[in-house]
């Protein structure tokens, strides 16, 4: 009788354990809608790779300003609605300072991961008060696209090597504008929004030459090298102009390569990529864990998976995202799936990345910079007053 009871009990125990195993913990992942299948594929691959956690992707708005507001509202209220949070690189300082996200140093250490193995710009933008708060989602950087069928070989070599100045580019833009069916020379982002800060960062060589950089920026705007309504250009207008073959040069993010492939009236054979004279502003997205999350281990396991070789391959092959794990930049499988990485100009651009100001009050700094620069570019402020205002904004 006792034996029977023991057997029954152990059977019940086994059943209970399997029942518990069959129900993995749900981990909520807040990220923007992905126009590629990559994010979903990584989530699926992670869910299939283990049985403890089930990552569920919560679709956020594609307007990043609105997404930040949605996140801060939820996090400010102490909600644990989202476990893993995808952040624009410039938000991490604020989220860390506000106490919304969790420092990861000890988890990284326990998992045997090394900060230096990941994209430096992405990791640095999530390092606040000496604590590491993020892992990369996918890095991004500004670069110069140009038309190889219009630009002379000599100029092309100069561009790809990065041995040119903004003034050289201005001269080239003026020369080549109108050739090969184009209507303008150089398109970039000068509308009153975050993109203006990214562009000004590159024009001023990471704010080391504010006066010279802004002056040359204005020369582009005033001259025939850029369209009349360049002050209204965001990435959308830029890509639109370039892929329709209307411009010779364009400053944009790596995604434009995919746009040329999918909907360009020009082909990628007519295009090459080069580093920018003042360095490439780092953008992209990073991953952090909600401080109020009850599933931090699961969240970290997913972030670790995404930044493993397997995860990086999926992100690259299915979405064309740049790897955040440095050793994958030269991985043959990645280069095979991502033809951009085989370009010398692209690899050169990756070597000259610069960050935007890192601050707990980044939106304030960015806002002040936009308010200082835009009036000068649109002709309603003088350069000296503008430089003073920019310096004041940066000092903040």
């Amino acid at each position, binding site marked *: 009788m006792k034996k029977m009871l023991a057997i029954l009990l152990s059977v019940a125990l086994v059943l209970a354990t399997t029942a518990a195993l069959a129900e993995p913990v749900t981990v909520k992942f807040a990220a923007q809608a992905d126009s590629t299948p990559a994010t979903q594929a990584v989530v699926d691959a992670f869910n299939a790779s283990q049985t403890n956690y089930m990552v569920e992707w919560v679709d956020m708005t594609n307007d990043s300003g609105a997404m930040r*507001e949605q996140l*801060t509202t939820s996090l*400010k209220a102490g909600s644990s609605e989202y476990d893993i949070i995808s952040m624009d690189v410039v938000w991490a300082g*604020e989220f860390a*300072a*506000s*106490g919304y996200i969790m*420092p990861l*140093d*000890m988890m990284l250490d326990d998992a045997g991961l090394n900060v230096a193995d990941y994209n430096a710009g992405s990791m640095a933008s999530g390092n606040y*008060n*000496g*604590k590491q708060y993020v892992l990369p989602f996918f890095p991004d950087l500004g670069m110069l696209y140009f038309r190889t069928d219009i630009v002379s070989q000599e100029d092309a070599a100069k561009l790809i090597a990065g041995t040119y100045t903004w003034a050289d580019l201005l001269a080239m833009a003026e020369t080549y504008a109108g050739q090969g069916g184009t209507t303008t020379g150089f398109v970039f982002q000068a509308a*009153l*929004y975050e993109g203006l800060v990214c562009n000004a960062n590159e024009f001023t060589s990471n704010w080391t030459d504010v006066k010279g950089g802004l002056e040359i920026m204005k020369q582009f705007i005033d001259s025939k090298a850029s*369209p*009349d*309504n360049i*002050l*209204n250009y965001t990435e959308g*207008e830029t890509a639109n102009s370039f892929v329709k073959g209307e411009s010779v040069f364009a400053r944009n993010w790596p995604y434009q390569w995919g746009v040329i492939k999918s909907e360009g009236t020009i082909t990628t054979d007519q295009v090459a990529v080069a580093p920018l004279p003042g360095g490439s502003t780092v953008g992209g997205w990073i991953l952090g864990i909600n*401080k109020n999350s009850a599933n931090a281990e699961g969240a970290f396991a997913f972030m670790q998976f995404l930044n493993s070789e397997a995860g990086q391959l999926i992100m690259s092959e299915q979405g064309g995202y740049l790897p955040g794990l440095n050793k994958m930049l030269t991985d043959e499988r990645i280069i095979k799936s991502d033809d951009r990485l085989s370009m010398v100009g692209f690899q050169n651009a990756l070597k000259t990345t610069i960050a935007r100001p890192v601050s*707990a*009050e980044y*939106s*304030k700094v960015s*806002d002040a910079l936009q*308010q200082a620069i835009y009036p000068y570019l*649109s002709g*309603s402020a003088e350069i000296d007053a503008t430089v003073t205002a920019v310096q004041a904004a940066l000092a903040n």
Partner: protein
Amino acid sequence: MQRRMTWKEFCFILPLLLLVSVFSLYPILSSFSYTLFDYQTNNQAKNALYTAATLNTMLYVEDCDYLVYYLNKDIPNVDESDRATLTALVDKLEAQKAAYANSEKTISLPAATDQEISALIAETEQVAQSYAEKYPTLRIVTKSGQILDEMKTCLISSNFIGLTNYSRLVSDDRFGQAVGNTFVFTILSVSVELLLGMALALIMNKAMRGIGLVRTTALIPWAIPTAVSALIWCYLYDGTSGIVAALFTRLGIIAAPELLLTTAGGTMFGAILADVWKTTPYMALLLLAGLQVIDRGLYESSSIDGAGPIRTFTSITLPLLKSSMLVALLFRTLDAFRVYDLIAVLTKGTPETLSIYAYKMMIGQSNYGYGSVIVVAMFAMVALIAFVYVKVLGAELIQE
């Protein structure tokens, strides 16, 4: 006949009073209380209304944890003789962790505890400094600086600043500019709307064939949600493909099509035009209601007395329309004064009006203290506008 309310009657209106206090008074009072604090949600020392010394236990425990973690990594790397010092420090930090691990996120901080924690921070700094030469690669030496600085911010003092936010408002140029923009937008858009709305109302008031159709079509712009109509105007104003921008350039109203959405003057003009297009029907509707209650007999007798159309308008229509006009103007002015959605969608924030500025401060920069001051200033201005309207236009209305 006035008589005093009985208790029983008072009980019947009590729910109403409660609702008013919960839904109106409470938000207003909390907005006012925000203005007296340096309240910024992106700074853990200022992210609530602290009136007394407080300890940020959550961050404090996390920082203690970091120091323990560094020290435990360091202990195997120092000489036998130095281990005791580090182990003693670890024990102290562990004791702190244990003491606060299960408390609330923030707790009140007595002076004695403050001293105790400050002493511990100083001791850790002391240890880090004393080992700097002997073991320059220790984590406690290289990495503890920022952690200790952060630990000091866990000791939160009151962020009550009285009227400092208000004095900042006085010297804030951007606020002055926002006030200017808001008034220009309000005055121009409401006066144009009044003129056009009056004309529209007079037409709609005529008994003629197909008037129902005219009234219905005229109301269409008002029926479209502002966000949608702003988006439509955004396309129309676009520098490359916008038809309105192209038309205005042809007519010589603007020098180049892209100016409408890029320059300060252009965006103001564009925002006013879009607002006039949208809300003129609303103004017309309010005025039409006023026109319809004017006694027809008055017009008949004035025409028998030989008054022309202009005399009729100034002597009969206008005076009798005064109360409707006051209501229409008051509604529209206060509406225009708080404009947000139209500008937010049309140009993402230029011209910067008071609502936009307050929004950028509070939501964009997480500065609720100063943002609330802007809101309170708006509240005062709205009250002033309403007061002026009633005084100037509606003196006799109140007497009735």
